[in-house]
């Protein structure tokens, strides 16, 4: 294997799961996400020489975001995002074994779905900064690079995304008072 391919596999491929998660939160369907990720990885490989010492994860996520918006362009943009589906590869499945009883496991799964649904109901702009910050642990500078926004805009958008999520969460809790945390 040539040297470039080896370095690419060592530096970039470890972030494939992160790339896939971002694509899934931005794409309209799992198939679109697959296409966007594959295209992104190819572009990343072609442009790999341009990556000099900077953070590979933020760099790859920026490419994924570009590929995702290319895929969305020309399609009608709707505030609709497919939720994770049955059969999706999910990390931490081994933890199920330690769950005490089936009933509470079912309740727990229901809560997980609740958050998937809440995040999916946010606008794409809000969802993307929120996922980058809270799930992928990107700092403001990295989010600014990935989304091609000034840092000030990242901060205000993140604040609006968080208050939108909070509002939806409160609505959810009012609808299901027994689910109070």
């Amino acid at each position, binding site marked *: 294997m*040539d040297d470039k391919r080896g370095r690419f596999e060592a530096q970039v491929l470890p972030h494939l799961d992160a790339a896939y998660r971002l694509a899934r939160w931005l794409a309209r369907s799992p198939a679109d996400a697959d296409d966007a990720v594959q295209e992104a990885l190819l572009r990343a490989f072609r442009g790999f020489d341009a990556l000099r010492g900077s953070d590979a994860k933020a760099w790859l996520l920026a490419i994924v975001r570009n590929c995702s918006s290319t895929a969305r362009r020309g399609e009608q943009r709707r505030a609709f995002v497919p939720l994770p589906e049955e059969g999706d590869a999910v990390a*931490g499945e081994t933890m199920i074994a330690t769950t005490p009883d089936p009933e509470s496991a079912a309740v727990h799964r229901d809560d997980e779905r609740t958050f998937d649904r809440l995040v999916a109901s946010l606008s794409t702009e809000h969802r993307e900064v929120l996922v980058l910050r809270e799930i992928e642990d990107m700092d*403001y500078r990295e989010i600014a690079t990935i989304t091609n926004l000034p840092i000030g805009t990242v901060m205000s958008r993140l*604040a609006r995304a968080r208050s939108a999520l909070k509002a939806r969460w409160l609505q959810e809790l009012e609808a299901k008072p027994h689910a109070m945390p």
Partner: protein
Amino acid sequence: MQCPEALRVQAYFDGEVDAVSAADIERHAEGCAECRALLGDLERMRTALRSELTHLRAPPALRTRITAALNEESSARTAQRSTTARNTWRTPPFWAGAMSGIGVSAVAAALVLLLFAPLLSKPLIDDLVGAHMRSLMPAHLIDVESTDKHTVKPWFASHADVSPLVADFAAQGYRLIGGRADYLEHQRSAVVVYQHGGHVINVFSWAANDRSLPKSATRDGYHLLFWRAGDLDYCAVSDTGWDELQGLVQLLTNLGSRDHPE
């Protein structure tokens, strides 16, 4: 009504401020009920998002697709580089006529070596890594579950086209856990499955053909070691380190040469 310090409080929560500003913001929050509530909200949302949101991972099929696309891209690049090298390599005019024939043939020969050697084994490597990844999915690993080679070996006789070496090396840390049949190289290949620590090692075997194999390869973080014994080709695949994988291959080849002295 929002406190004008809310964005700074958020930046503090996200670890984006220096120690001096942090102390300043903490002092502010002590006296501002709104910002204390904001900090509580931010913390609860983060905890909920990180624990409740479905943690998606790239599906194995997508990994395989990407590996294949990268392989294609790598070989296209190699070809392109060689062509470019030939075009930009300017010999002085005097030598040009005399050398051109040799130069072109040399480049052509190099191209054949560069391109065809890896190309021949590339689809096979993809197949092997794909089969290894499939085997790690629930209920795909083992068709016949046994730590006894006298159970696994006869099972292959009726389920695979080849009869590979089967042995348990539990004492050396490689526990035989069973066998499986996978379709590979246009035949029902036999797969012997070992466990080493927390890792699974699949040892594939198929009737050798005239395809030339690399000694080793790495794809997607999986290591592959190839060897030939008798009329079978073997390949061990795992995400263990090279040394651990080599350890098992060594045990198998030692045993093979003792059982079937050439």
